[in-house]
């Protein structure tokens, strides 16, 4: 579904992604681990068109999307949920969700998607007329994920969904993600520090260090010691 071929990416003047290649198959859940500052977030930004690689190529369903602007990539069915959330603070939850379905591809299924989103996050239904700037951290995170889902993606990339969340909220976010994959067949790429949670739902794992893939394995074969070693 997604194929990344030897891309190089920069953050400011730092060369953070070095000749990195990876692939994601349809309906998979892929977890991306690695120490902070080693290029995970930059990689996601390169894939969703917020930044562009200086070399290498990215293919989505065998269409080359390397140089596509972000809005075009959303239209193709890749949704990206940034760690910073980037919600529209002066708008209500409902307005944020509606804007999630801004691209043409999502128009037809707005009502089904809304229904699904409220089923996954009942909390948001209660808060639908509240301005997002007044929400708590966990609720904002839910809006970010829900807004991503509204774009009717076939591939959803989530950057650190659990950051700053309490254990129970963290669980509900991961459950929601699992449900999205199970029920809607949406492919997931998850960047996460909470290795245990992410590992429990992933099919495959990429370990990234210094901008390169350290190893790639089916989740079932991953030894936690290996990951720990890479982190420390």
């Amino acid at each position, binding site marked *: 579904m997604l194929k990344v071929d030897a891309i190089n990416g920069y953050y400011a*003047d730092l060369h953070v992604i070095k000749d990195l290649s990876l692939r994601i198959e349809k309906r998979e859940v892929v977890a991306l681990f690695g120490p902070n*500052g080693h290029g995970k977030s930059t990689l996601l930004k390169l894939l969703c068109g917020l930044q562009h690689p200086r070399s290498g190529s990215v293919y989505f369903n065998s269409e080359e999307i390397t140089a596509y602007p972000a809005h075009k990539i959303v239209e193709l069915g890749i949704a990206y949920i940034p760690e910073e959330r980037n919600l529209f603070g002066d708008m209500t939850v409902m307005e944020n969700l509606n804007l999630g379905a801004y691209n043409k591809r999502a128009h037809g299924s707005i009502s089904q998607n809304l229904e699904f989103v409220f089923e996954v996050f009942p909390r948001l239904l209660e808060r639908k007329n509240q301005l997002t700037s007044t929400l708590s*951290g966990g609720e904002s995170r839910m809006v970010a994920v829900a807004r991503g889902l509204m774009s009717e993606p076939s591939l959803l990339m989530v950057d650190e969904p659990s950051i700053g969340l309490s254990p129970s909220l963290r669980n509900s976010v991961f459950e929601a993600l699992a449900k999205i994959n199970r029920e809607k067949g949406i492919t997931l790429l998850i960047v996460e520090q909470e290795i245990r949670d*992410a590992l429990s739902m992933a099919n495959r794992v990429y370990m990234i260090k210094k901008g390169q893939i350290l190893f790639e394995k089916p989740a079932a074969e991953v030894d936690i010691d290996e990951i720990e070693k890479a982190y*420390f």
Partner: protein
Amino acid sequence: MLETRELSRSFGKLAALSNVSFVVNKGEVFGIAGPNGAGKSTLFNVITGNYTPTSGKTFFNGQDITGRKPYQICQLGIGRTFQIPTTFHTLSVYDNIKVGSTFGGQTTHPPEEILEFLNISHLSSLPAKNLDLYSTKLTMLGAVLATNCQLLMLDEPMAGFSIVEINQFIDVLKKINKDWGVTIVIIEHLLDILIGLTARMLILSNGSLLYLGPSSEVTKDRKVVEVYIGAAHKEEFHVES
């Protein structure tokens, strides 16, 4: 030498830093670690006056420096570097360092001395924008050292370095600490590097203090392991796999 008392800072509703207290002793190399968004850079920014704390105080050599402006903090003898390699890109390496020695405070080091000390005299006339990453960071460090700081605060100085460069840089830091007697506070992600470099360290998580103590014992701390690996039940997990 440096002391913070219950330092807190929030951005709107988000508490980036809550009640962080610690002491850095004269002459030591002190480490700070923690996951992304844990508040490490915020802590630096609050100490160096880029942000004002929501509550709490900072003391330097017994003097309350809370709320001072960055340039005043510098002139008191606290220097810092940035996570993103920052130089004055249109100026030469020499002039970059000259800025530090011109504005840094009463007694400063002449640029020549710094160039010599960091072994970058050969780059002296090169514009900073033409430097590679390693030299860029050395130039930034040199400019800060030129202010004759007694306390040097480094924000992930080795991000993006190769193993060789990391080792070189560590030698430079040791020299600064030993030969010049500069106290160092360093933020670093990679714990093994930090453990080798520092005697004591502080680990932040979600803006609050998670660990404060000897660096050698940090990997034995259950909470630290949890936060870094995310394996709340590490043993259980081993059984599963």
